[in-house]
């Protein structure tokens, strides 16, 4: 995921690198930790592209970054357009199940069950985070909700896969309609 735009948007108010990282992590409920090197690399690229500029230092002498006019336009453009969905990210789970169905030695039902348990445990983990107050802050709460909805959707999809697999298995093991043992007269079927 590109954090460029998110960091840029948070520079609505001038900030120094560590502060920017802390703000990003607090806003997003620490769901996507950033290392500070990544933040400074991004800032220097943004500066090179004319989207941010040095904004002096704070009382403790830390270098602040602030948005340029071009940066403001870029941020507005980001918020004004939807996140692209035309190229869904490569989905390892979907690929794994699709391949599992094609490989006869794999117990696909077990793959589904194992994943569902893991995802349910993740969902229970989000629940614990929420109960411990992680979602009390609005921004962090929205991110946590997003993770809950995504895990929920995955479990529902796995339930659906399981039903489809069972239906497919039932169809393939159903007894074939009995063939007539005597030649028929051809007009009764």
């Amino acid at each position, binding site marked *: 995921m590109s954090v460029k735009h998110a960091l840029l948007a948070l520079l609505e108010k001038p900030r120094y690198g560590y502060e920017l990282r802390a703000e990003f992590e607090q806003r997003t409920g620490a769901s996507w930790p950033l290392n500070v090197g990544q933040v400074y690399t991004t800032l220097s690229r943004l500066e090179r592209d004319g989207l941010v500029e040095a904004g002096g230092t704070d009382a403790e002498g830390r270098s602040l970054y602030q948005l340029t006019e071009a940066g403001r336009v870029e941020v507005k453009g980001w918020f004004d357009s939807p996140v692209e969905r035309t190229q869904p990210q490569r989905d390892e789970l979907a690929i794994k199940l699709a391949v599992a169905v094609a490989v006869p030695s794999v117990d696909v039902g077990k793959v589904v*069950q194992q994943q*569902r*348990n893991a995802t*349910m*445990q993740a*969902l*229970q983990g*989000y*629940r614990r985070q929420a109960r411990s107050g992680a979602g009390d802050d609005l921004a962090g709460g929205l991110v946590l909700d997003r993770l*809950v*909805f995504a*895990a*929920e959707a995955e*479990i*529902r999809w796995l*339930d659906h896969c399981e*039903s489809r697999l069972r239906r497919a298995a039932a169809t393939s093991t159903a007894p074939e309609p009995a063939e007539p043992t005597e030649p028929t007269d051809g007009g009764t079927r």
Partner: protein
Amino acid sequence: MSDPVLRLTDVSRVHGTGAAEVQALRGVSLAAYAGELVAIMGPSGSGKSSLLTIAGGLDSPTSGSVSVDGQDLGEAGISGRAKLRRTSIGYVFQDFNLIPALTAAENVSLPLELDGAGRRPARDAARVALEEVGLDGFADRFPDEMSGGQRQRIAIARAIVGERRLILADEPTGALDTETGEDILKLIRARCDAGAAGVLVTHEPRYASWADRVIYVRDGLVVDEAGETPSTVFATGVEQ
């Protein structure tokens, strides 16, 4: 570990006979301990609701045994089971099952009054339970005057009134929006954290995730279990 509040041992339930025979449950064993919320998930017709009605003594197993608070429901007989339902077991249903002609407080105090409690102490207990579910001030309202979420809160107050040890909830969020559903689960969870044992039937993963353990039922069998604490209660009954 102490004795479970609810224990089902090798429970089977067959409805109908001959060609119409349906095996709703096939040898299910499970236990729910004090302080624990257990969720039961499974597709429609998997037996999850049958399991709950048997756990609560509303239906009897064809074979196997059920005990609540150490008391065998089969041995308790009809009146013993009725007493347990009034005193130890609280139910929450999808469609609330409130009596429209009674106020919120009267709906909640009814099981206590049926059990012989005096009117005044029963009403006092009802008010405490209504407060616990955030309905203080609504005691004299009729269910029709309240929203779906508030009605389900009354139903929860009725399920917990009188310190019930076992809360059984069958799709309690089915008729509610996500946020209201979450509030309802919070209440059930809080009651379990306070020492009750809870069993929640749901088809929604988000609500199941409030539970300590999630049990999957399919074709009347427990087929899987997810949860942080590996269960020690599944000595039998899990299809491998």
